[in-house]
C-alpha cells in the first residue's frame, strides 16, 4: 500500500503525453522580458538602466527586503526598455526588456561555491542570491523557507516530487534527467538542519524516477512512494502522508518539524553551488489538448508564451484557455505575450469542451465535495454561506483552512464552482482581518 492522506481523488492526468519525451532545450527569443515580481514578497528595485549591456546570470533587479530574491538575466544583450508590462498574474508589473544578442556571454561573477567551507548563513545567502524560489508555482523565497522561526526544530526535510497536477511532468523529467543534482540540492538543505535523512515523496505513477533515485544508493535519501491521488503534492497532504503528522490549522509545516522543497528548487540549489549560475531557465511542460506536440522544454526565463508554444508546434486547434501551471490550480492567461517566469511550471492550452464551465445547476447535495475534500471541509456549505455573504458561518465551518485545491469544483456535477465562491469569501475575510489590525 502506498502512503497517502484522507480525501482527494485521482484526476485523469494526461501525463503519458509528455513523460517519456526527454527535455529539449530551446533557443532564446529575440527579446526577453523580466518582470520585477517573480516571487511572493517585496517588489524589486531595478539595478540596470536602458542602454546597459547585461550578461547571462547578471542581477537586473534586487531588493534589501528579507522576503525577496533577485532576478537575473537569462540572455546577454542590451536593455532596451523598462516599463510596466503584462504579468502572468494578470496585472501590470514593471519589467526589464533585454534584446537577445544570442552570444550568451556569462557574467564574470558566476563561479562555483565550495559548500564544505561555508557556514550555514553563507549557504542560505548563496541560495538567496541565486534567486531561488519555490519553483512548483508558489514562488515563496526558498531562503526564507530554509530559515524557520526560532524555537522550531526541523526533523523532516521532504522533497515534493508528487507532481499531482494533471499534464505536468517537468519535475518527473528533472528527476530522471538530473537525479544526482536534485539529490545534491536536497542534501545541501539537509545540511542546514544537520539532518541525517531526507525523504522524497513521489506519486506511484513515477516508478522510473523512484528507481533512478534508489540507483544512487544514497542511504540518507528515502524514497516514499505515494498513492497517485490529487492533491498529493499539496504541502500539508504530503507531510501527512510522509510523516503521519497534521500541520495544525493556521500553522506552518515547521510546527510539525517539516520543511518541504520542490524538485526544481533542489535542482537550482545544486546548480547555484556547482556552477554558480542563478535561476535563469527552467523546464516547462507545454501540453493540453490544443498543443500540437506536447513536450517538456528547457526555457530561458523571460521568453514570451507564444514563442514557447511555437516551439511545441503551436496550436493544433482553437484553444479557449491558456493556463500557466496545472489545470487544477494554475492561472488563466488572456494574452500570449506574457513572459515565462520562475514559477511557470507549465503552459497549457485547453479547448472549450475540456475547460469551460457552462452550467450552474442547483446543489443536489450529492456530497462528493465533502467526501473528497482533502481538508475535511464541507464545501457545499462554505460555498452557500460565501454566496450569502455570511462570513460568520464561513469562519465557523473553517473556511480559512481551505487550500483551494479546486477538487470540489472539479467534481461538482452541478458545476457550481464551490472553490471560486470560497476563494472570494476568503479574500473578504483577509481584508477584514487586515483592517482590524
Amino acid at each position, binding site marked *: 500500500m502506498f502512503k497517502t492522506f484522507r480525501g482527494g481523488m485521482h484526476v485523469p492526468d494526461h501525463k503519458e503525453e509528455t513523460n517519456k519525451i526527454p527535455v529539449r532545450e530551446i533557443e532564446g527569443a529575440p527579446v526577453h522580458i523580466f518582470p520585477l515580481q517573480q516571487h511572493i514578497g517585496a517588489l524589486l528595485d531595478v539595478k540596470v538602466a536602458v542602454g546597459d549591456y547585461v550578461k547571462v546570470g547578471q542581477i537586473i533587479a534586487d531588493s534589501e527586503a528579507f522576503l525577496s530574491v533577485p532576478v537575473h538575466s537569462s540572455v546577454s544583450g542590451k536593455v532596451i526598455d523598462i516599463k510596466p508590462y503584462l504579468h502572468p498574474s494578470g496585472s501590470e508589473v514593471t519589467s526589464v526588456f533585454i534584446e537577445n544578442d544570442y552570444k550568451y556571454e556569462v557574467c564574470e561573477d558566476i563561479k562555483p561555491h565550495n559548500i564544505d567551507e561555508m557556514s550555514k548563513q553563507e549557504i542560505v545567502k548563496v541560495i538567496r542570491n541565486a534567486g531561488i524560489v519555490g519553483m512548483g508555482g508558489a514562488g515563496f523565497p526558498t531562503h526564507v523557507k530554509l530559515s524557520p522561526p526560532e524555537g522550531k526544530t526541523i526533523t523532516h526535510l521532504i522533497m515534493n516530487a508528487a507532481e499531482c497536477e494533471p499534464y505536468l511532468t517537468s519535475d518527473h523529467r528533472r528527476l530522471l534527467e538530473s537525479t544526482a543534482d536534485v539529490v545534491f540540492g536536497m542534501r545541501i538543505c539537509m545540511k542546514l538542519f544537520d539532518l541525517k535523512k531526507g525523504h522524497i515523496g513521489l506519486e506511484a505513477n513515477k516508478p522510473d524516477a523512484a528507481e533512478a533515485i534508489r540507483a544512487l544508493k544514497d542511504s540518507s535519501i528515502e524514497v516514499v512512494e505515494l498513492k497517485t491521488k490529487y492533491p498529493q503534492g499539496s504541502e500539508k497532504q504530503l507531510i501527512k502522508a510522509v510523516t503521519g503528522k497534521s500541520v495544525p490549522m493556521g500553522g506552518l509545516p515547521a510546527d510539525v518539524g517539516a520543511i518541504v522543497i520542490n524538485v526544481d528548487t533542489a535542482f537550482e540549489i545544486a546548480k547555484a553551488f556547482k556552477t554558480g549560475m542563478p535561476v535563469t531557465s527552467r523546464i516547462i511542460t507545454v501540453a493540453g489538448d490544443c498543443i500540437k506536440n506536447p513536450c517538456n522544454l528547457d526555457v530561458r526565463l523571460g521568453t514570451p508564451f507564444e514563442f514557447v508554444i511555437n516551439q511545441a508546434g503551436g496550436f493544433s486547434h482553437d484553444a479557449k484557455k491558456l493556463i500557466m501551471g496545472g489545470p487544477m*490550480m494554475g492561472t488563466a492567461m*488572456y494574452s500570449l505575450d506574457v513572459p515565462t517566469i520562475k514559477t511557470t511550471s507549465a503552459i497549457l492550452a485547453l479547448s472549450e469542451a475540456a475547460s469551460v464551465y457552462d*452550467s450552474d445547476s442547483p446543489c443536489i447535495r450529492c456530497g462528493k465535495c465533502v467526501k473528497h475534500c482533502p481538508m475535511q471541509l464541507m464545501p457545499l456549505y462554505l460555498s452557500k454561506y460565501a454566496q450569502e455573504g455570511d462570513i460568520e458561518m464561513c469562519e465557523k465551518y473553517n473556511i480559512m483552512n481551505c487550500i483551494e485545491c479546486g477538487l470540489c469544483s472539479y467534481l461538482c456535477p452541478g*458545476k457550481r464552482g464551490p472553490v471560486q465562491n470560497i476563494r472570494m469569501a476568503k479574500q473578504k475575510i483577509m481584508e477584514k482581518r487586515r483592517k482590524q489590525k
Partner: protein
Amino acid sequence: MEHKFVVSSSPHIKANDSISSIMLDVIIALIPACAAGVYFFGMRAAAVLLTTVAACLLSEYVYQKITKKPITVGDLSAVVTGILLALNLPVTIPLWMAVIGSAFAIIIVKQLYGGLGKNFMNPALAARCFMLVAWAGNMSSFVTPFMGYGADAVSSATPLAVLKGMQEGTLPSLLTAFLGGKAGCIGETSGLMLLLGFLYLLLKRIVDWKIPVCYIASFAILMYLFGDNQTGLSQGYFTLMHILTGGLLLGAFFMATDYVTTPTTSLGCIIFGIGCGLLTFAIRRFGSYPEGVSFSIILMNVVCPLIERYTVPKSFGEVKKNA
C-alpha cells in the same frame, strides 16, 4: 492570429458528471426492478410506470411554465421520482390515483420547497405516504403475481402481513422472496433485481455503501434479537424473510440513498442508516402497519439537517477548542 482566451479562476478542468448523467445512471439502475415488476405483475405494471413518469414530467413542466421558472425536466430528476413512485405502488392502483400522487410528489413536495435540491423529504416516498393515508384500501390491496389484475385477480396477503399474523396466507420461500414473485408493490417483488441496480450505482460511485448497509444491518440485528416470531420458523429465517419482503431493499438501496434528503457527512450517513433501521424495526414490530420503510425514511429525512449539523467532520489540523 488573434486569440481570445477565457479567463476564470481555477480549476480549469471538470469531471464529466452532470446532474442529468447521475439521474440517468439511477434510471439505468432501476430498470432491472422495473422489468421484474412487469414480468411478475404483467403489462399493467408498465402502465403504472408510464403513468407516473409522464405525470411527474408533466407536473414539473406545467408548474415551471405557470410560475415562469426555467424548465428543468431535462435534468431527468422527475423521471426518477416517477419510477420510484410507481415501484412503491400496488399494481392494481387506479391510474388516476397514480397521477395525483405524481403531482403531489413534484408540486407539493419538490417544487413548492424550491425545486431540485431544496426538498427536505424524498418526493416519491412523501407521495406514497400521502396516498397511503388518502386511499388506504387501494394502496394495500395486493394481488398474486402472474394472476392477472382484472375481475379474476386473486387478492393476496403480503408476506409482511403474514409474518405479522395480520392476514392468513402462506409465506413464499426465501428463494422466491429473493428472486421475485411475491405479492407486494411493483418494485418490491425481486430482491435480486434491486441488488443488481444497487451494485451498478456502487460501481459507478453514484451512491455510497454506508446508508444501505447500516440500514439493513441494524434492522437485521434488531429483528433477529427482538423480532416477534410466531411463524414457527427459525429466527434467522424469519429475519431474512423480513429483509427480503416489503420495501426494505427498495427503500435502503434507492430511497435512503437519495442525495437531497440524506446527510453528506460520513458519520451522518451511518447515523441516518441506523436511524432508518431502528424506526423500520419499531414500526414493523410494534406498529399497526405491517410495513414501515417509507415512514422511517421520511422521518429520518426530516431530521437529516440536524444530523448533518452535529456531524461536521473535524477539519485537517483542527484542534477542538477547550469548552
